[in-house]
């Protein structure tokens, strides 16, 4: 059987707390929570039947839980995405290309040959020639699929395209990734 603490007034601890609450009605949620915490920390305290468990739902009602959840979720989202936004902004500042320069490091596997030719202002046929593949039937195929189709190494394919652009546009500088 659980021990029940008896107060100096001869009442159980739970009954004493209920009496105190009736005498001081309308205390804020903060002070009630404070009473809970202080009661919890009180030296020599024993959890009697119905002390914390009966007051707990009144202190943290579903509505209060919703508010607490919103505050915690909002704080987590703000901190996580705020930090990420700061890092992205710093990377963007580092990757600013000088005017007139084109970044050959920006070539990606989803790009098609006509797009690369247009974006870097180089002849499309020269790019196909650099890979040693025909342009027919391959114009709308992204670089990654071209490499798969012809059994080429994707990294080497990208490198060959970059070299072809640098050869065809000598003014272009390879821009290192930050």
């Amino acid at each position, binding site marked *: 059987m659980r021990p029940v603490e008896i107060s100096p007034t001869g009442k159980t601890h739970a009954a004493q707390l209920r009496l105190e609450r009736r005498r001081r009605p309308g205390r804020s*949620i903060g002070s009630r929570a404070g009473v809970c915490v202080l009661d919890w920390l009180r030296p020599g305290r024993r959890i009697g039947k119905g002390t914390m468990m009966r007051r707990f739902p009144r202190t943290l009602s579903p509505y209060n839980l919703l508010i607490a959840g919103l505050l915690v979720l909002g*704080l987590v*989202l703000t*901190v996580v995405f705020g930090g990420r936004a700061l890092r992205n902004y710093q990377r963007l500042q580092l990757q600013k290309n000088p005017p007139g320069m084109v970044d050959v490091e920006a070539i990606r596997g989803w790009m098609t040959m006509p797009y690369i030719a247009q*974006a870097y202002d180089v002849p499309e046929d020269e790019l196909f020639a650099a890979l040693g593949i025909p342009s027919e039937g391959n114009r709308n195929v992204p670089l990654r699929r071209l490499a798969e189709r012809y059994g080429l190494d994707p990294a080497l394919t990208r490198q060959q395209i970059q070299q072809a652009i640098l050869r065809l546009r000598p003014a272009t500088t390879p821009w290192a990734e930050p």
Partner: protein
Amino acid sequence: MSELTETLLTAVLVYGPLALALTLALAALGLPLPATLLVLAAGAFVQQGVLDAGSTALLALGGTMLGDSGGYGLGRLGERWLPGRITSSATWRRAAARFSDWGGWAIVITRFLLTPLGPATSIIAGSSHYAFGRFLAFDLLGELIWIALFGGLGYSFATSWELLSDLASSLSGLLLGIVVLLLGGVLAVRTRRARQARARPQL
């Protein structure tokens, strides 16, 4: 970048603004597609001369508004399937009246700023019988700002649009976090005030 995003980018390069419009319509309906990233990329493609500025902007706007209207229609239909005790309740009517008063701003803001909440707002507008003409007018305004803002950024930062897309995504999450935090704060203050008002002795 995910394989889906890469496929969509290739589709925009190959099929042009039509692929962009279709993707934006599906994203506006609530499908998890990278709509803002595609608008940024489209801006960069326009700057590089791959896409035409006029037709891209028009089709992107048309596609997004089509998707938003679809969301509105879903809300209208969905409301009919809900039990009558919910839709005729005082809470539901109060929420609908409040949306009727403030919904315009919610529609505009969720089109370009709090974009993750856009599809839900369209559905709420439909289910609360918000006037379709007004919905379309606010939708047009919000989507115009979105396309001009992100398309313009993609056009300006054509060589670094991928990084810009990451930044836009992070800023969107940050804004959402701030809104959730503010909402929680407002509710907490209101609850506290209500308790204090109840606690005051009646004269």
